[in-house]
């Protein structure tokens, strides 16, 4: 097929010159229709591609922005689930774009979604600058994530400027306060220069009240009245700290300081402040107590019964407080309920307390109420009711209306002295893992100790695994986790060594050394284990039994079995975990030769060598047989008499040689005996002490000589 033709004729000088345009036109006209169509399509495609890309991008952007606006609108309208789903889809659409992250964070918070904590953490890790969002994220982390993770983020991801920002600081201080880490709070407050933010000052006053000593109460009041005297405007935020001071710890100056502050504020003081002032007045003028109490009762008895009941309670007038609280409790007042419960508990009126708890007001912490009812049942000896209430409390808490319900319940059970119940709840709370506000490992180390004492090794291992994720920098947690995980077979000894050996180069501790030693023993490196456990300064018999066992295993492995037996005398096997007992017993048991063929390669080699040796022996025997046959054939020429004569000659020669050797030996012995006797006589003469018999060394030498030269029969 001819698609196009070209003029192949030689150039004619007279031919009319064609322009470039005409050439193209001619080329186009001569082009086949198919090529023309293809060219047009290609040109159109080249022109369309950039436009198409742009159009797609524009469409995507428009759709993205529309969805972003829709998500914002949904969040503003309180449709949190819709906002969460939209922002999640936006994040998935463009993975590296983190713009929808704060949106997702707020939506997850509104929808009470478990995504909240990880999203907040991710947002803080990013180099973001939106203060409200960062503050929201930090408050979320501070309130809802484990203490170890919160501390890690505070020191790593929170900027230096934010660390001095009171809004950020107060969230952190409150968390530290909740975890009873008073020293940490004091450390942070000591670093503050200038005038401390009143919220931080309030946190300090709470910490002082929690300390609960006479000195701390004095310091609290000194700080409080000093601050409100110099900065009266901070008073409303700080003054309720007086409620945390018991009546007996109030100082007389409180009346003056508080009165001055009220005067400086001007106007009519609130009911609460009037009652506080009355408390201070009673301290200054104890003789007027009844008058003051009656005055307050007549002034506020009808209008503010709850406040007056609290006032009575601080003065230990529980009867009057109870009278005021009863109608309020009947109405379902949420504030009156815990005060009333506290009064009944203090007076040990179990039946009335239980009756009160039967109908808690709305908003009460129901797992806590049921825990209290279980406590009452326990005190009344009703084990069945106790178990029932405990179960109900646990079921309610596990529904996880809030992340910390289980933790609150565990703490309540600990306070009530129901330690077994508290332990079970703590284990459940730990299993929830990083999405609940777990305390520091050191705060609940008793949980781990109890699990170890109760030999619940699987629960112990699970709990340590969670805590290793929550507090990755805590060496105690890492060591304990790897020790248990190795013993129950969750990690291999090689993994233990890989994780702990680099740490051991910098830090030395007995648990660390013994864990590494155990891993080395399991890996067959007995000398390294000996180096790690060979500290002579250790009082082995007052140490953890596991250390003794590891030392004994090391000694057994390096061949000092007798010493190992001393370490294992009266060993308290019942104090070890089942996995420890299992592994240590296996390690202490010497290998049986019959059942322990050793390394496969070695055995194979030994087997091969045995076979080869057999073959060699057979060949040698064959050769010897041949030589013997040849010799026999050679000697067969000699006569029998000659052979007998030769044999007799040989035996005679050997006998004579033996006799000569015996005689020479006897001569030698005689000479030695004479020399030693002479030496002994000389020594005896020198000492003037006559000796009888031969000296011991002489005897020895003679005996040795006789042994070497046995007498022939």
């Amino acid at each position, binding site marked *: 097929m001819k698609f196009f033709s070209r003029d192949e004729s030689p150039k004619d000088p007279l031919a009319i010159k064609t322009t470039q345009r005409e050439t193209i036109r001619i080329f186009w006209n001569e082009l086949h229709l198919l090529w023309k169509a293809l060219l047009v399509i290609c040109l159109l495609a080249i022109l369309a591609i950039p436009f198409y890309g742009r159009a797609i991008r524009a469409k995507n952007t428009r759709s993205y922005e529309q969805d972003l606006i829709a998500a914002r609108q949904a969040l503003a309208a309180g449709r949190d689930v819709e906002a969460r789903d939209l922002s999640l889809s936006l994040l998935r659409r463009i993975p590296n774009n983190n713009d929808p992250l704060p949106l997702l964070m707020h939506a997850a918070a509104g929808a009470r979604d478990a995504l909240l904590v990880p999203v907040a953490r991710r947002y803080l890790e990013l180099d973001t600058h939106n203060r409200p969002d960062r503050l929201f994220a930090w408050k979320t982390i501070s309130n809802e994530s484990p203490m170890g993770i919160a501390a890690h983020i505070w020191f790593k991801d929170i900027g230096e400027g934010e660390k001095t920002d009171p809004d950020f600081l107060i969230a952190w201080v409150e968390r530290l306060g909740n975890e009873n880490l008073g020293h940490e709070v004091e450390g942070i407050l000591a670093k503050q220069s200038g005038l401390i933010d009143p919220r931080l000052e309030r946190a300090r006053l709470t910490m002082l009240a929690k300390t609960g000593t006479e000195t701390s109460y004095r310091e609290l009041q000194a700080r409080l009245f000093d601050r409100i005297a110099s900065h009266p405007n901070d008073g409303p935020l700080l003054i309720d700290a007086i409620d945390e001071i018991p009546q007996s710890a109030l100082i007389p100056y409180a009346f003056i300081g508080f009165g001055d502050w009220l005067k400086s504020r001007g106007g009519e003081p609130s009911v609460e402040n009037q009652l506080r002032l009355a408390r201070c007045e009673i301290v200054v003028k104890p003789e007027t107590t009844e008058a003051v109490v009656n005055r307050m009762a007549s002034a506020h008895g009808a209008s503010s019964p709850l406040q007056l009941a609290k006032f009575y309670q601080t003065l230990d007038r529980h009867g009057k407080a109870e009278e005021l609280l009863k109608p309020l409790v009947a109405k379902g007042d949420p504030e009156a309920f815990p005060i009333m419960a506290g009064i009944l508990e203090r007076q040990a009126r179990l039946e009335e307390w239980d009756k009160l708890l039967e109908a808690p007001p709305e908003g009460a912490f129901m797992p806590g109420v049921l825990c209290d009812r279980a406590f009452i049942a326990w005190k009344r000896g009703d084990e069945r009711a106790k178990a029932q209430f405990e179960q109900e409390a646990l079921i309610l808490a596990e529904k996880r209306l809030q992340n910390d319900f289980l933790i609150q319940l565990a703490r309540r059970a600990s306070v009530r002295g129901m330690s077994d119940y508290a332990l079970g709840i703590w284990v459940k709370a730990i299993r929830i893992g990083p999405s609940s506000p777990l305390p520091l490992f050191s705060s609940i180390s008793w949980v781990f100790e109890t699990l170890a004492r109760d030999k619940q090794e699987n629960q112990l291992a699970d709990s340590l695994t969670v805590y290793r994720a929550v507090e990755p920098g805590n060496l105690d947690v890492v060591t304990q986790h790897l020790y248990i995980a*190795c*013993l*129950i*077979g*969750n990690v*291999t*000894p090689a993994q233990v060594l890989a994780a702990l050996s680099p740490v051991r180069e910098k830090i030395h501790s007995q648990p660390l050394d013994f864990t590494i030693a155990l891993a080395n023993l*399991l*890996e*067959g490196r007995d000398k390294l284990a000996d180096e790690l456990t060979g500290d002579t300064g250790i009082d082995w018999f007052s140490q953890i039994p596991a250390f003794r066992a590891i030392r004994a295993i090391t000694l057994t492995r390096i061949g000092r079995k007798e010493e190992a037996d001393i370490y294992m005398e009266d060993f308290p096997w019942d104090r070890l975990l*089942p*996995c420890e*007992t*299992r*592994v240590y017993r*296996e*390690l202490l*048991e010497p*290998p*049986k030769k*019959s*059942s*322990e*063929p050793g*390394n*496969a*390669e070695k*055995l*194979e080699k030994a*087997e091969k060598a045995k076979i080869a040796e057999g073959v060699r022996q057979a060949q040698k025997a064959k050769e010897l047989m041949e030589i013997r046959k040849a010799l026999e054939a050679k000697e067969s020429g000699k006569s029998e008499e000659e052979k007998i004569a030769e044999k007799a000659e040989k035996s005679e020669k050997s006998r004579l040689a033996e006799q000569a050797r015996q005689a020479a030996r006897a001569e030698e012995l005689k000479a030695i005996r004479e020399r030693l006797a002479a030496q002994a006589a000389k020594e005896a003469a020198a000492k003037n002490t006559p000796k009888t018999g031969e000296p011991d060394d002489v005897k020895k030498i003679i005996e040795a000589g006789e042994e070497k030269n046995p007498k022939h029969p």
Partner: protein
Amino acid sequence: MNLRRVIFCLVPVLPVLTSEVISYRWMNPTITKAYIYPTLPQLVADPTFKSTPEEFNAIRSKIVCSEGWLGKMGSENSVGIQLAWIEWNGTEARNTLEAFRHKPEVCMGANGMKVEQSYPKRIYGTGEQQFVFDTKLFRPLRGGPGIYIFKAVWVSGLIGANYRDEILPGAKIDDLRNMRFAIIKHRFKPERTRVLMAGVTGLPSEELAWKAFSREILPKIQWTTVYPPATH
């Protein structure tokens, strides 16, 4: 029908018959020597031992075996051992190869376990009474306690059988063509084949697992000698 015609008809059949007879004679040599075979009785003396016949019946048809049992022993406080003892008696090439074919990584993988580490083979016993154990550490995909799997194949007349290596010289189980040639060449028709597979849990190292397994289970293997029929 005369004899010539009969012979003529038999001519094409004869080579076939002859080759059948020769191949039968080749693959069924007369047993002249005494031989031994192992048996592992169920460990009923151990109070923690629990047999699981229903599990054995489930796999029995798949592996075309004669006898066997599955079971487990050990409590929470002691070493746990899961056992499988499979017997093929009067074997053919087909079901003997079944013993070699099933690799632990396949069946354990189906149970959500992955191989974490392989160890050098372990040998128990010598000569004809030798078991060569292939050892591997398996762990659940999501992490958790590991299980040490020891598997050995014992075949009568084949010293040191190991299903990871060549079964016969130049023949592996994966290479069926060579395997068939090797079976014919070496007149491979073992009388008895055994598989012993054990999963040891609760110990942190392969050495300890082997120690416990070789102490608790392997000495309980019983050996029986079979003498050839008396020849007149």
